[in-house]
């Protein structure tokens, strides 16, 4: 078998993201379905306004969170498939040389979709366990008829079955496209044929600056993940801190937990990939006498601006989302306070983000220190 089950274990990041996406979507979509069944029992105008607001909130949250996380999962899946083909090019090239067709090899990549299935099933299960508490919170406001948790097969189908199949098909199609390369290209090292397309004239750039630049250019997907990680941290933590007047404490804690899990999971996966992908470069730099600090700065430091950019985008995103929710979705509902940019929440989040991010970077810089030059060169 070309791709084994153990290869899918490395896709834990996709599982976590899928779990978070399905968790949030299940809460709101299941609630919406149950709420819709009670629509006829709502008699007051205020109740109807609240009903419409709740339905819209559910749709917006499910679409924005689910959509955002789904896009991230797709990018992560494609990144893993590409990475797998790049690192196993020789084995795959030999199979093609022996006469296996591209599709025959690519079809084994369906197992990558299993990570999505595991994540979705986990997210759905956790959401179903949490739904009674979630409903109790909504019922406590007594603006809408009391509703009970119902199982909706369509929600389970669209949030667990469909993504698992879709991601498996996507993995196979993408692998098939990547395997269209000639056999000799697959047999060569990844970089041996990547030349002219990436060429950039930076003649007077010092080596370390050039290395930092090429590290970023060579791994654009990782730039996205590092930015996304900071985005999640910034958006979710600020949102949970600044929405205390708009929602329950439980929702805020849930949002913060999801944000932090996503942020750290994505950051760990990205930086692990960065260090792993640059081990030979770091080893050669060490052989030549570059200090560890230069290696870390060139290889890890180049991602720092993207992290802070992610933080800024996350800040804007959460502000825009809450502003839209309050001014449009809750427009008809009374007693909803006007939403303003929460500078305190932003300052607290930035105060948490900087040390957290720098500690993680320090941890990976330590990992670079532990790289054995000899073991890398003997590979």
């Amino acid at each position, binding site marked *: 078998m070309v791709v084994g089950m153990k290869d899918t274990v490395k896709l834990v990041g996709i599982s976590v993201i899928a779990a978070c996406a399905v968790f949030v979507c299940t809460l709101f979509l299941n609630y919406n379905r149950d709420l819709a069944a009670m629509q006829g029992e709502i008699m007051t105008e205020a109740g109807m306004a609240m009903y419409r607001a709740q339905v819209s909130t559910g749709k917006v949250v499910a679409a924005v969170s689910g959509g955002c996380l789904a896009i991230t999962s797709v990018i992560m899946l494609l990144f893993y498939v590409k990475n797998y083909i790049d690192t196993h090019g020789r084995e795959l090239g030999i199979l093609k040389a022996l006469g296996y067709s591209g599709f025959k090899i690519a079809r084994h990549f369906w197992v990558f979709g299993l990570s999505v299935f595991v994540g979705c099933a986990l997210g759905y299960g956790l959401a179903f366990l949490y739904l009674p508490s979630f409903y109790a919170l909504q019922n406590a406001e007594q603006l809408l008829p009391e509703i009970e948790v119902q199982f909706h097969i369509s929600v389970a189908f669209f949030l667990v079955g469909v993504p698992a199949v879709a991601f498996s098909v996507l993995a196979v199609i993408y692998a098939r496209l990547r395997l269209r390369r000639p056999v000799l290209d697959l047999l060569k090292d990844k970089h041996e044929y990547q030349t002219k397309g990436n060429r950039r004239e930076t003649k007077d*750039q010092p080596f370390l600056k050039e290395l930092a630049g090429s590290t970023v250019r060579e791994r654009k997907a990782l730039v996205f993940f590092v930015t996304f990680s900071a985005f999640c941290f910034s958006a979710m933590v600020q949102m949970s801190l600044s929405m205390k007047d708009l929602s329950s404490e439980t929702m805020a804690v849930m949002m913060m937990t999801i944000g932090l899990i996503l942020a750290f999971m994505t950051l760990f996966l990205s930086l692990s990939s960065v260090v792993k992908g640059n081990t030979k470069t770091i080893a050669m730099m060490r*052989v030549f006498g570059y200090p560890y600090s230069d290696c870390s700065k060139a290889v890890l430091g180049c991602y720092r601006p993207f992290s802070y950019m992610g933080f800024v985008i996350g800040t804007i995103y959460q502000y825009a989302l809450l502003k839209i929710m309050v001014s449009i979705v809750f427009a008809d509902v009374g007693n909803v306070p006007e939403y303003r940019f929460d500078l305190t929440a932003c300052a607290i989040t930035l105060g948490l983000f900087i040390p957290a991010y720098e500690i993680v970077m320090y941890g990976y810089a330590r990992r670079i220190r532990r790289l054995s030059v000899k073991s890398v060169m003997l590979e």
Partner: protein
Amino acid sequence: MISISELVKSYGNAGNKNQVLKGISLQIADGDFVVILGASGSGKSTFLNVISGLERPDSGSVVYGTSDITRLTDEKLTQFRKDNIGFIFQQYYLLPNMTVEKNVRMGADLAGNREYREMITAVGLEDKTGKYPGELSGGEQQRVSVARALAKKPKTLFLDEPTGALDEQTGRQVLDYICRLHQEYGFTMVMVTHNQNIAEMADTVVKMNSGKVTEVSANEQRKTAYEIGW
């Protein structure tokens, strides 16, 4: 002068210890071209790694002038390699996503050498500065690694089977470049090889077997890369 004394190096744990270097002592004069000859498994590459500061010995000393590098901290050893040592490997280890020029700058920037293009010209690659390693032949890649190593102006150059992956004609060409640069710049050169013919190009030949130096001899008359057999 490099003074190597009673060098011992083992791998493995107490129950399964493999002593690779068994108390090697040797003197290498400044500017000398030393070839270390030995069969596979004789310990010659480990010896090269230890005397160049890439690995630490279990015991013994490696003294450059007055500085014993076996006693240096990691930071000081890095600084030592930066200031004194150049490497050329059999597998070249060029950075694949960087052009010839940037690969050479990797060495040149460490020494603040702004004239690094001269080194690219010296190895005959002046028309390939914008090429990537993947676009070069094996011999050209090895010449880039020669330029990279020498662009940092090392006092001692270590070469681990530099022609091991090259055919005869290309191997001779690379050796010729190295020897001409050695004569021009006067650095000390220590080369590990299993090719006995290359030994005829050296000032001193050190033969190793099973972790020990078995013979040290000097060549009266050095041959060029095109005069030796292959």
